[in-house]
C-alpha cells in the first residue's frame, strides 16, 4: 500500500491536533481551519497512524493524539495528575457511568451504604462527573452524569463502549431492584412452585 502524500488540509489538521492542548471536536477543528471539511482528513489520519507509536483517537466526539496503548509498559509512570481513587469512588463512578443520570439516593440504593460527601466531590473535582440537573420528583434531587473528560480519560469513544454495558442492560442489571423484582415475581407466578423454591436457593 502506497499512501498518498498528505494534502495540505490533512497536514493542517494533523498539525493543529498535534499542537492543541485539549481534545478538539471536528467542528472546532473546522472552525479553526477556516471552515474546512475535516472529516475525511481525520479518517485518513486515523488510518495513517494505525499501528504507529502514536495514534489519533476520538473520545466523546473530541479528537486527540495519544501514545499507543500497547506501549503503556514503556511510558507508564506514577504521576500526581492521575487520580488515586478509593474503592468507594470507583464504585460510585461506575454506577454514575452505567446508570446516568442518577441521584445520590439511587447510588446509595445500589451500594447499600451511605456515600460520604467527599466521594462524589472527588469525582466532581476530577471533572469526570457533573451535576446534570434535578430529577422532577418530590424533593427534586440533584442528578449526576459523566463528562466528556471521563470518556477521554478512560479511552471510551462514547458511553456505548463502557465495558459490558450491553450485557448488563440485557440482563436487567441496570434496572432498579423493584422493577426486576416485579418481573421476577411475574415469571415466578407462571412457574411451578418447585421452581420458585429452587430459584430462591433453599438448599444449604
Amino acid at each position, binding site marked *: 500500500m502506497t499512501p498518498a502524500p498528505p494534502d495540505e488540509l490533512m497536514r493542517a489538521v494533523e498539525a493543529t491536533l498535534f499542537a492543541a492542548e485539549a481534545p478538539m471536536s471536528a467542528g472546532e477543528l473546522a472552525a479553526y481551519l477556516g471552515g474546512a471539511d475535516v472529516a475525511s482528513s481525520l479518517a485518513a489520519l486515523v488510518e495513517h497512524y494505525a499501528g504507529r507509536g502514536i495514534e489519533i483517537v476520538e473520545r466523546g466526539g473530541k479528537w*486527540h493524539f495519544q501514545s499507543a496503548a500497547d506501549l503503556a509498559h514503556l511510558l507508564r509512570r506514577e504521576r500526581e495528575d492521575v487520580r*488515586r481513587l478509593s474503592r468507594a469512588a470507583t*464504585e460510585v*463512578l461506575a454506577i454514575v457511568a452505567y446508570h446516568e443520570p442518577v441521584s445520590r439516593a439511587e447510588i446509595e440504593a445500589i451500594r447499600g451504604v451511605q456515600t460520604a460527601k467527599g466521594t462524589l466531590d472527588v469525582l466532581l473535582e476530577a471533572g469526570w462527573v457533573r451535576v446534570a440537573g434535578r430529577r422532577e420528583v418530590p424533593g427534586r434531587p440533584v442528578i449526576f452524569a459523566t463528562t466528556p473528560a471521563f470518556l477521554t*480519560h478512560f479511552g471510551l469513544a462514547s458511553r456505548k463502549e463502557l465495558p459490558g454495558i450491553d450485557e448488563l442492560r440485557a440482563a436487567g442489571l441496570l434496572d432498579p431492584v423493584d422493577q426486576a423484582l416485579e418481573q421476577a415475581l411475574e415469571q415466578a407466578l407462571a412457574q411451578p412452585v418447585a421452581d420458585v423454591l429452587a430459584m430462591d*436457593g*433453599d438448599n444449604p
Partner: protein
Amino acid sequence: MNGPQAVTDLFTGDEQWDGIAAKSDHDEALYLELEGWEGPLDLLLDLARRQKVDLRQISILALVDQYVAYIDRAEAMRLELAADYLVMAAWLAYLKSAMLLPREEQEDPSPEELALRLQLRLQRLGAMRDAASRLMARDRLGRDVFRRGAPEGLHVDRRNRWQCDWFALVQAYGQVNARTAPVVHMVRDRAVMTLESALARVAAMLGVTLDWIELAQFLPPHADARLHRSALASSFVAALELARLGRAEMAQDYAFGPLRLRRIVA
C-alpha cells in the same frame, strides 16, 4: 517525563486499583478485613462470591449462615462492629426463620420475595463492582496512554477593528446638540376664518338685499388659497346655521352646482 529512567524501573505496575477479587480466603485475614467492607451489603456480596456460584444461583440460607457466623466470630474476636452490620445480622436471622416456617403462616411480603430482593441487590452491586474493576483496568489517559508532553498550544488572538466615518461622527455630535438644546415650541399663525366671523359676515351681507346670492360671493376677495378654503368652509356652515334658524333659505339647481342663499323676511 523528567529525564531518562530504566524501563525496568518503570514497569513497577500500578497499585491504585488492586481489585477486589484478590481477597484472601484465610479466616484470620478475612476477619481483620472488617474495616475494608463498604457496609453489610458489601460483606454479604463477598461472602456470596465465596460460594463460587453465579449470583443468580446463590443459596440465601447458606449466605445467612455465613454472615451470622462471620459476625459471631468477629464479636468473639472483639472486633468493633458497626451497628448496621448487627442490624443486617438480625434481619437475616428473621429472614431465615421466615423461610423455614410453614408457608401458611407467612406474612406479606413473603420471605421468598425478601430473599429475592436481597439476591437482586447483590447482583446489582456485584455487577457495578465488576464494572468498576473493568473500567479502572482500561488504558487510562495519563497512566497508560499519554497525550503530548509539551504541546505548542493553539492561540487565537482576537482583535476588533473599529469602524466609524467622519459623517457619522459629525452627525452624532449634531444629534447630541440637538437633543440637549432647549426646545421652544411655537404654533405658527395660520390664516383662518372662524365660524363666528363667517356668521357675522354672511348675516350682514344677506341683510343688504332680498335677492339670491351665491355662496362664493360671501368669500373675501383676494384671499390666499388657504384662507379661501377656510372661508368657504366657515361660510357654508354659517349658511346652514342661518337656514336652521329660519333666517335664510338655500337653493342648489344641480349636484355640485352653485349654492345660492336668500334672506327670509320674517
